[in-house]
Structure formats: C-alpha cells, structure tokens
C-alpha cells in the first residue's frame, strides 16, 4: 500500500520569506506522527501543503497516492480550537453533518445515510447523547470531541489535527488523547502540537519543524534536536509516564 502522505523536497516562500525548506516526510497507514516546533516555524503551512491549500514552490506532494486536491475528501481535519464561531445557532448533530459537505452539491439535502454516519461518529467520540445540544453549551473538551466526530464522519484514512489541546484542561486532555489512541488503530494521524508531554505516551513518531524538518522514526527526542528546531535552549521535563520521550539529562 502506498504512503498516506508523501512529501518530497518541499520549498515554500511567502513574499520572499522562506517558510519551508527541503521538507521531506512520509506517513504510512496507522502512523501517529506529532509535529512540534516554534510558532512561525511553518507548522500550519506544512498542513496546508499536505491538504493542497498551498502550492509549494518546489517539490512533490502526494496524498494517498494522488494529488491532494483529489484526495482531500478522504482526510479528516480538525482546525485549531478557537477558529470557529461558537455562539453560532447550530446543534451538535448539524456540526457533525457539516463533515459530509464535501460529498454534497448545492440543492442536495442531508439524507438518512448522512444522519446515520453523523450518529456513528458521535458515538465513536462518546458524544451521542449530546446530539441535540447547542454547540456553545458544551465544555471545551466536549466541543473538541464534536469537531473530531465531524472529521470522522466521512470515514477518512487520515486525520489531521492542528494544535488540538489548546484551551482544554489537563484532565480533559488525557481523555482526548485516549480517544486518539483508540482511533490510531484504524487510521493515520498527524498532529501539530506544543504539548511535548502528550507525545511521550501516545505518539509513534515525532518531527521538529522550524523551516527545516527534523524527523525521527522513533519518538526519542534529544535536547540537541529540540534546540536545533527552536534555536534556543529548551528545558525538557520528563513526566512520570510509562516510557520516556526524553533521554536522561
């Protein structure tokens, strides 16, 4: 089977400022890759390249063996937590149905099949009982689950999350990562995050992105790797977790 994501030698510049430089990346089926790096290091740009929303100046992008434009509909995308209008008059079920939008043209209504898919996705994330609630009434962690359900409703082969843990308290974060861990057995996951502690427990591979991409086939990060990426001394704290990401230091 071909790689889920296959990026080769990607270069991107905005207004003459280089954002990505020679980025090569392969994600296989059922991989769980975390991408860390400083703000402005090109993380969001990289996600947009993968989704085909930005054309790189150089390099090739393959998503599920084809162009991102053709295959984008097989990708579930969870945007940054704050990016949607949460005072919006919409129920949880309608938010999840929005995930089916890529399969619908104008004039087409959502049918029973769509609704069933939405209920299944809500069930997967444990939010089925909230389906008729207003999105604004939910807590941060519950909203995040709903947005994951929205991305799962098309039964994607790849799940992309952009800083999913922002704005969620640490207890809810744990439940959230448990959920990702459950999903990992079925699909590939790429997650952009600042949360180095979460990487330790759940993630298979880690990459550091600061214009250049430093990639690890395992998740052992060295102080040196992080400092190359962040270009400043980074304090590493190893948490009391089943296994360490960070070497003794």
């Amino acid at each position: 089977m071909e790689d889920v994501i296959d990026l080769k030698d990607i270069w991107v510049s905005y207004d003459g400022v280089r954002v990505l430089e020679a980025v090569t990346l392969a994600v296989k089926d059922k991989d769980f890759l975390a991408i860390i790096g400083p703000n402005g290091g090109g993380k969001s740009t990289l996600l947009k390249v993968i989704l085909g929303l930005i054309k790189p100046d150089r390099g090739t992008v393959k998503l599920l063996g084809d162009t991102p434009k053709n295959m984008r509909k097989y990708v579930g995308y969870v945007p940054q937590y704050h990016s949607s209008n949460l005072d919006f008059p919409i129920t949880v079920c309608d938010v999840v149905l929005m995930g089916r939008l890529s399969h619908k043209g104008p004039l087409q209504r959502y049918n029973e099949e769509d609704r069933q898919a939405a209920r299944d996705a809500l069930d997967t994330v444990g939010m089925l009982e909230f389906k008729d609630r207003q999105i604004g009434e939910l807590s941060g962690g519950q909203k995040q689950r709903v947005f994951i359900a929205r991305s799962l409703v098309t039964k994607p082969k790849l799940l992309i999350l952009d800083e999913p843990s922002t704005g969620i308290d640490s207890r809810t974060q744990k439940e959230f990562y448990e959920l990702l861990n459950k999903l990992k057995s079925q699909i590939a996951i790429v997650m952009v995050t600042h949360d180095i502690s979460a990487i330790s427990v759940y993630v298979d591979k880690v990459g550091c992105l600061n214009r250049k991409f430093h990639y690890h086939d395992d998740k052992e990060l060295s102080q040196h790797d992080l400092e190359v990426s962040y270009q400043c001394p980074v304090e590493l704290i190893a948490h009391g977790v089943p296994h360490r990401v960070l070497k003794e230091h």
Partner: protein
Amino acid sequence: MLEILQYDFMRNAIFAAILASIACGIIGVYVVVKKIVFISGGITHASFGGIGLGYYLGINPLYGLIPFSLFSALVMGLVSKRSKVAEDTAIGILWSLGMAIGIILIYWTPGYAPDLMTYLFGNILTVPMSDIYLMLALDAVIIFTVYAYYKQFMALCFDEEFTTVAGLSVEKLYLLLLCLIALTIVLLIKVVGIILIIALLTMPASLSRHYTNNFAKMMYLATFFGIFFSIIGLFLSYLADAPSGATIILVMSSVYILHFLYDGLKPKIAS
C-alpha cells in the same frame, strides 16, 4: 383607521413591507451571525452610486442600483479579502467612493432629481406596482439561492477553515452571500432608504437569535418581526404624520432596546 387600507398606495406599502421583510429576515440572519454588518453597511452606502447612475442615464434608479450594488459587493468582497490594506479601511474607502460617484452623477444630471430623498430616507408610500413586481422577483432569487446553498452558507458562517478543507471555495461562497446582500439592499431601499437599511438588516435577525437556537427558525422569526414592526411603523407614521422609514426604524429600535433592557434586569442564571 381601517379606511386607509382602501387606498392603493397603502396596499402597495403593505405588500412592500412584507416583501422587504422576507429578504431582510433571511439575509439579516447571515449578516448578524457572520458578523458582517460593517461590509453590509459599506455595500449599502456605495450603492448610492447606482442611484446616481440611474438618474444620469434617465432610467428608473432601481435599474441603476441593481448592477451597481452587485458590482460594489463583488469589489468590496475581493478588495477586503485580498488587498494588503486592512479590511475595515478598504471597506471604509469604497463606502465613500460609491457615494461620491452618486453625488457627482446626480449633480451632472440636468434638471432636478425628483425623489432623491426617497432613496436616502425611504418612502414606502410611493412604491408603484412595477416596483412590487421587481421586489417579488428579487425575493424569489434570494429564497431560491439560500435554499440551494443553505448547507454551504451555514458552513461558511460557522467555520471558514473547515469549509476550505472540505473542498469548497470560501471566497466564491462569500461573494455570493455579499451579492444576496446587495439584492436585499435593492429590496429595502424604498422602505427605509440607504441611510437606515442597516437597522432593518440587523435588528429583526438579532432579536430572533434571542428566541431560538435554530438557524432556519431564526429566518422565519426575523421575517415575522420585520413584517410586524414595519406595518406597525407604517400605521404610526400615518397617524403621527411622520416619515414612514424613520418611524419603522424608531418602532423597531424601541422594542429592541426595551427588550434588552428588560433582559439585562432579569437575574442571570449561572451556566
């Protein structure tokens, strides 16, 4: 007092109020929920250029208004999203530019612009039957487009980023929505005039948000509020011998303000 219904102009006024309220009920919900009041105000005022164009060409100013307001909506949408100037600055500039074009074209028009004040401040009592047919057609276009793109507009308003990833062109959808706002302005102009349109686009929709959490129900409710307040305003303006457009807005604003004062005084339930 019911004898005034015997007059043709009064019947037309009531038709116009209903047709205008349908458009502002539907489109107003998008304006309020997507928080695009400022750009809507910009399109409204820039459309004055279209009134000027109508006078200058010697045609019904509404026929100058339709293409000009659609054009302003497209230019404003594109410039505000694509230019390097801040969005509100770009809107502010185009807002005045459209009005300036209108003022110059009217100045150049030989003779006197007879019912210029109607377009600025509205006069629902002077709506002829031909305008009612035009409003009916525009309402049909708005209802059909919203019916066809209901899901897409909902996604656009809720989460642009996700909508893009779902493979839809956010820019095209946004421009289409702005064009519907432009058509709504054409519908509303005879009722309250350019200066007061923004009140009619925002108040019924904002009030309806208070009573329902459902997008479609907001549209029905906002339409009902629009019809109710504009007909009350119409009768009050007749009784008080006051300008109809301003009276409608005054009625609506009073209810709106009282509603929120009352709401503010109620003890808040902890959530």
